[in-house]
């Protein structure tokens, strides 16, 4: 019987039954796996994230990213201290050593291999006041990375080395850049302006969220979901409100997967059949462009360098995203002489970054980081940001059409959202539904790609003024 008792002690069963909220997280992991595998929701990101959620939420597995308070502290009590203290009387515990109650992390204490929430009644252990004085405080910013791995396991290590350091989002942007073609944008450069209009959702939701219980940093992180760009959303959240990373990343990627649903919805609500039937090619014939392209190759090489310079001057905080995006694009466009680098940037590096980003973002989704009211706010606010961004782009197109002779299909405004290239494909399908000859894909790609730049710029602004 001693054997079975020890085995039972080793298992996570006791903890899972005491704290059924873990089961909620595990169920969530299964739902996300279902969405990623069966429904094809951004599988490359959502499946690693979902698996990260799964393995993070078994007590004792040490695969969850520990929540820290605002100054980077983690609280733990040793097993010896715990066992020594068992004989004493129990008292209610209030954490007083400088931890703000508003910090999600201060609510949770890791005791040995188990997690205890002092706010839950019947949690006798931490009611022993003598134990509180023996709680060890770790300063995550003073611990060497290998010590983080040693004390808290590899997921915390990966998280601090690759994610919290801000490294992976720019690295992924390098790969995105290496897979992006600015050709369509260069051929219809004017349409790039709709990549600006479609950032409206970000700032609109920022206002609403800041009035609904989120502080400004949290509101900014929530709002950036409206940029429809995963790495940008993660990068911004890491700088402003890292405790909301998991839900924001999942919301961002889920809504990007739902672009084929959301765009038609917004378009249906805001556009008339006439507007959607505007044929860009015929407009081009009516009002032909004078621009000719004598050397597209040279142009494509000069363009990323130019955009980097412009963004770096106006919004220096966006340079780590935009700079890496454009570097990836540059080594692609240069061609032969840097194709080795291009190959690795767009494959090995990007896939590696995706795996580790996904797993460790998922691993931040522990009980206390997810099961709170803010998550509902993120889900709702993120959806609004998405919809309002599309709406913003459409409105800009409509306003433009009020003044210009050469009309623009509002779908091109809608794709300013980014979510490249799915948004463009969805827009194209909508256009074809109204007029089977109206191929708007290449036009949409211009605003679509510009939307990536636009949301990175918006992220830089949020980081600059709120960070």
């Amino acid at each position: 019987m001693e054997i079975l008792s020890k085995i039972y002690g080793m298992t996570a069963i006791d903890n899972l039954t005491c704290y059924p909220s873990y089961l909620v997280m595990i169920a969530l992991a299964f739902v996300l796996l279902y969405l990623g595998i069966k429904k094809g929701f951004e599988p490359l990101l959502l499946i690693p994230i979902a698996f990260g959620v799964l393995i993070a939420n078994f007590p004792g597995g040490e695969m969850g990213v520990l929540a820290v308070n605002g100054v980077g502290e983690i609280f733990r009590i040793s097993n010896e201290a715990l066992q020594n203290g068992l004989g004493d009387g129990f008292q209610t515990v209030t954490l007083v050593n400088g931890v703000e109650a508003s910090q999600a992390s201060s609510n949770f204490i890791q005791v040995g291999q188990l997690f205890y929430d002092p706010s839950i009644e019947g949690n006798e252990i931490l009611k022993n006041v003598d134990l509180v004085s023996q709680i060890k405080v770790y300063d995550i910013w003073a611990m060497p990375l290998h010590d983080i791995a040693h004390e808290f396991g590899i997921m915390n290590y990966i998280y601090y080395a690759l994610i919290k350091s801000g490294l992976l989002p720019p690295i992924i942007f390098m790969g995105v850049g290496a897979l992006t073609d600015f050709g369509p944008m260069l051929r219809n450069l004017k349409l790039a302006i709709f990549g600006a209009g479609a950032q409206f959702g970000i700032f609109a939701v920022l206002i609403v969220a800041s009035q609904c219980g989120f502080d400004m940093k949290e509101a900014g992180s929530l709002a950036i979901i409206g940029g429809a760009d995963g790495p940008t959303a993660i990068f911004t959240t890491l700088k402003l409100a890292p405790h909301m990373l998991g839900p924001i990343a999942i919301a961002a990627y889920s809504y990007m997967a739902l672009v084929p649903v959301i765009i038609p919805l917004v378009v249906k609500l805001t556009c008339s059949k006439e507007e959607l039937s505007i044929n860009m090619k015929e407009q081009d014939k009516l009002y032909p462009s004078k621009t000719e392209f004598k050397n597209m190759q040279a142009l494509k090489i000069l363009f990323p360098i130019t955009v980097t310079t412009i963004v770096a001057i106006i919004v220096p905080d966006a340079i780590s995203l935009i700079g890496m995006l454009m570097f990836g694009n540059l080594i692609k466009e240069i061609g032969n002489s840097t194709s080795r680098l291009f190959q690795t940037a767009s494959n090995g590096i990007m896939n590696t970054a995706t795996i580790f980003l996904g797993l460790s973002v998922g691993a931040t989704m522990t009980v206390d980081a997810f099961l709170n009211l803010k998550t509902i706010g993120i889900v709702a606010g993120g959806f609004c940001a998405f919809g309002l961004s599309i709406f913003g782009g459409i409105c800009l197109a409509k306003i433009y059409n009020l003044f210009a002779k050469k009309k623009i299909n509002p779908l091109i405004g809608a794709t300013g959202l980014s979510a490249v290239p799915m948004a463009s494909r969805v827009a194209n399908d909508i256009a074809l539904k109204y007029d089977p000859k109206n191929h708007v894909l290449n036009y949409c790609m211009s605003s679509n790609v510009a939307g990536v730049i636009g949301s990175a710029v918006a992220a830089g602004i949020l980081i600059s003024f709120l960070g």
Partner: protein
Amino acid sequence: MNSLSILASATANAQEFEGLSGALLLMAIGMVTVFIVLLLVIYVGNALIMFVNKFVPEETKEAPKASFASVQSVDAVTANVIAQAVNTLTGGKGKVESIKKI
């Protein structure tokens, strides 16, 4: 058995298992656990087989396509995968007779 004693047993450390009796205890714990886990794998695995046969009996034909957010196209991927294939296959002396796209 309350959660406190559980905690204590879960946090057993090396000292507790010193000596022959400790090692024997650890062997018993270990072998029993390994058998429990693999028996569970077998039983749950069988349940899974029944579940799949009952609820998803048909093979899905088309898996959803991979995509990166903000990713344009997969030319680079194609090139790379072919490079991999050629490389792995040939090992210096093989040949790919033909790869056709219809």
